[in-house]
């Protein structure tokens, strides 16, 4: 009872602080922008810590944040090696390959209505290939190392980027297109000067969604075969060993890396689509 009151109290306090921050004059400065989610996260973590301690939840099921922090701090070299294997080699490579493929196919599809109509449904079909099925196949084909992970990621990020790019390339107003027509502009000028810029807000939508998919894909694919390094390897092995603090330390790495990846994309988006109403 006491614990519950404490937990709710922490929540209320965190929310109050954030409301004050969000409505303060400084709410649009970079510092406060980072501070607010941080306060929100700290609130959740405090509630978690209290709950684990008060209800005596077994560390085998849910470790306390403080335990996770200790494990995290003492396993930095392992975590770095795993990060390198999974995020840099697996996720990033796959993301880049998938992105290039999606752009290529989108441009191809965009050249004719016929191809759009043909490629989009087939692309949608690919998006629904569940990782549980594709991962073992790619491991079988490309081996247990990062190459198979990159392939899984490439397939996963392909569709969201494709769909958004195709939709974006079509998101021009009639008048904008007519203008190009009066210039007798051919395919490339109208692509480079009209459709691509107009598509950017959509493309970034796809790229942002794909960042999180890339991470999940690379990690989960390791469940189906891997060398003895990697975040997915570590997570699954640690679950087997009931080392849940290690599992959560890896999850923290994933969350940090994912947020940074997403944040970087969002930042680039802000830079290049400053003109879009949603950014003004």
């Amino acid at each position, binding site marked *: 009872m006491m614990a519950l009151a404490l937990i709710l109290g922490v929540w209320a306090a965190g929310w109050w602080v954030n409301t004050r921050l969000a409505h303060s004059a400084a709410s649009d400065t970079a510092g406060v922008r980072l501070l607010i989610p941080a306060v929100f996260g700290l609130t959740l973590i405090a509630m978690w810590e209290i709950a684990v301690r008060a209800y005596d939840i077994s560390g085998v099921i849910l470790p306390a944040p403080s335990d996770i922090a200790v494990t995290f701090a003492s396993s930095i070299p392992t975590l770095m090696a795993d990060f390198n294997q999974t995020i840099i080699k697996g996720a990033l490579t796959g993301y880049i390959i998938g992105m290039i493929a999606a752009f290529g196919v989108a441009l191809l599809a965009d050249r004719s209505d016929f191809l759009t109509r043909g490629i989009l449904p087939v692309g949608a079909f690919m998006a629904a290939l569940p990782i549980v099925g594709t991962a*073992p196949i790619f491991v079988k084909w490309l081996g247990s190392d990062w190459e198979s992970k990159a392939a899984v990621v490439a397939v996963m990020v392909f569709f969201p980027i494709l769909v958004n790019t195709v939709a974006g390339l079509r998101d021009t107003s009639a008048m904008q297109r007519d203008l190009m027509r009066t210039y007798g502009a051919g395919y490339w000028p109208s692509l480079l000067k009209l459709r691509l810029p107009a598509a950017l807000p959509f493309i970034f939508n796809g790229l942002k969604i794909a960042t999180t998919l890339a991470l999940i894909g690379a990690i989960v694919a390791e469940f189906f075969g891997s060398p003895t390094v990697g975040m997915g390897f570590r997570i699954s*092995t640690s679950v087997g060993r009931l080392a849940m603090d290690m599992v959560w330390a890896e999850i923290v790495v994933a969350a940090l890396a994912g947020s940074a990846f997403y944040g970087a994309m969002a930042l680039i988006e802000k830079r290049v689509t400053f003109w879009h109403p949603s950014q003004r």
Partner: protein
Amino acid sequence: DGHANDVTLQLQWVTQAQFAGYYAALDQGFYEDEGLNVTILPGGPDIAPPQVLAGGGADVMLNWMPSALAAREAGLPVVNIAQPFVSSGLMLTCWKDTGIESVEDFRGKTIGVWFFGNEYPFLSWMSQEGIPTDGSDDGVTVLRQGFNVDPLLNREADCISTMTYNEFGQVLDAGVSEDELVTFKYEDQGVATLEDGMYVLEDNLEDPVFVDKMERFVRASMAGWRWAEANVDEAAAIIMEYDETGAQSEAAQARMMGEIAKLTQGSTGALDQEAYQRTVDTLLAGGSDPVITAEPVGAFTTAITDAALN
């Protein structure tokens, strides 16, 4: 009431003949005869039975002893109450043409190993042999093996882990003949560790109602095992019936049942203390990174099998 007669059993893999004794007991009404209402939860690639036990999702789990002892050291007090598997079915299967003839030849080779709590026997063995597992030139490169035998067939690995009753058969099914292969049974190497045993949480054993329930459960389960050993084909048919995926083949399950029977043959369900000690010694001998660091205390009880089998 429910508490006195309901039992949930967590398996450590999907429904297959490895667990035939329990399915047979269920199907043949042995549990019912004991007044028990048993639910069998199949396992899967991400199910850690100790975790399910800790979360209260099951009353009993099946587990390999290395994994269970490690869990115990990690702070989850699980206790072995019965041990239907007397010998180990674990082995390494290698291509003969890689030149592997003895354990020493592993150096410089790539070996597939199951993790998720099943890596302990291999790691202990290697450290007893003094072979590093870090991928160095005079050590082995360890590959985290998935759920199939592809790494061997694709020659990505020189050896992989197989169970006598399952994966080894699959290698043969893939068209490989036995004389293309070299096998190393853990049993033969003197590093066998106990496999499928029944474990419960220590605290529960203080509850006489629970203990009584477990006695009946172990008795019925062992009856199930006896029945399955004697009726291999029928046991396979029962597995087919309980397999909800509908993807298993009866022939494979019958073959598996035959191999399983060799592992359970002669077990009363009572834990063989010698085998227990051998398992513990193997695990403790893990060199710099032993699986368990101290001789476990209270990791098994014979009270239940004593009561159940008399």
